[in-house]
């Protein structure tokens, strides 16, 4: 299965969702800076992986799915929660990749240029995330029970 970009999806994002994400993102970065100033780099560093926008993101995903089902005349409450759960499972994979990002920054920042570290760390994050996602999608880590599950349980409609 290929990873693709569907640029038309940008048009479907309502303005208030842009604002929510911008405000949350900005607020967390300010919070991380203030905590680092007050308690030092060790405690401040923890907040570079603070899941502050995660609840808002999961809530938006749930709302999208619910609205989509409502348009078709169904109650999409349970479906929305399942899809938000699947996104959270995807975020778990992203966390392993994020650990790779942090390790590259930790080990390389004192040694090579900042721009090179950013490129290397971001590439590491993307490659690890993609590899783990692919492994999860492939048959390697699937049990026989997983094949018996109905396909619609894992299909998102967005």
């Amino acid at each position, binding site marked *: 299965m290929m990873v693709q970009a569907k640029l038309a999806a940008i048009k479907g994002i309502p303005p208030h969702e842009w604002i929510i994400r911008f405000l949350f993102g900005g607020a967390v970065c300010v919070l991380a800076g203030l905590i680092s100033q007050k308690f030092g780099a060790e405690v401040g560093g923890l907040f570079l992986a603070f899941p502050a926008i995660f609840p808002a993101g999961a809530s938006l995903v749930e709302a999208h799915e619910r609205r989509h089902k409502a348009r078709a005349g169904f109650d999409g409450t349970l479906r929305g*929660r399942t899809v938000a759960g699947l996104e959270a499972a995807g975020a778990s994979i992203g966390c392993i990749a994020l650990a790779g990002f942090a390790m590259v920054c930790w080990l390389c920042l004192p040694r090579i240029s900042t721009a090179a570290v950013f490129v290397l760390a971001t590439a590491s994050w993307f490659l690890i995330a993609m590899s783990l996602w692919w492994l999860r999608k492939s048959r390697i880590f699937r049990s026989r029970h997983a094949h018996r599950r109905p396909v619609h349980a894992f299909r998102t409609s967005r």
Partner: protein
Amino acid sequence: MGELIIRFLVGGAVVSLFAVMAEVVRPKSFAGVFGAAPSIALATIGITIAHHGRLYASTEAHSMIFGVIAFFLYASASSWLLMHRKCAALTATSALLPIWFGASLALLYLVDKTR
């Protein structure tokens, strides 16, 4: 004050950029990984280097690893709660945030203690 304003603007922009990437990428099962994108780190490490230097930023990145482990536990618990207990997404993910605080601070404390 100037540094905080820059942090807010850059942080908001980078987080929004990763949110857009999560929206456009297909299949949607892959989009989930953007829930743990390095958006906050990318937005703030550059500013930290400019104000405090590379070693300070490297120390922050080292601590970030503990924050990431805590994030993994938090995301896994959120996924389980949403899939199996069908709680509202905002309620479940907000109620589980203490997992992140507890796990990250405990890991930092344990590592400091063993040094």
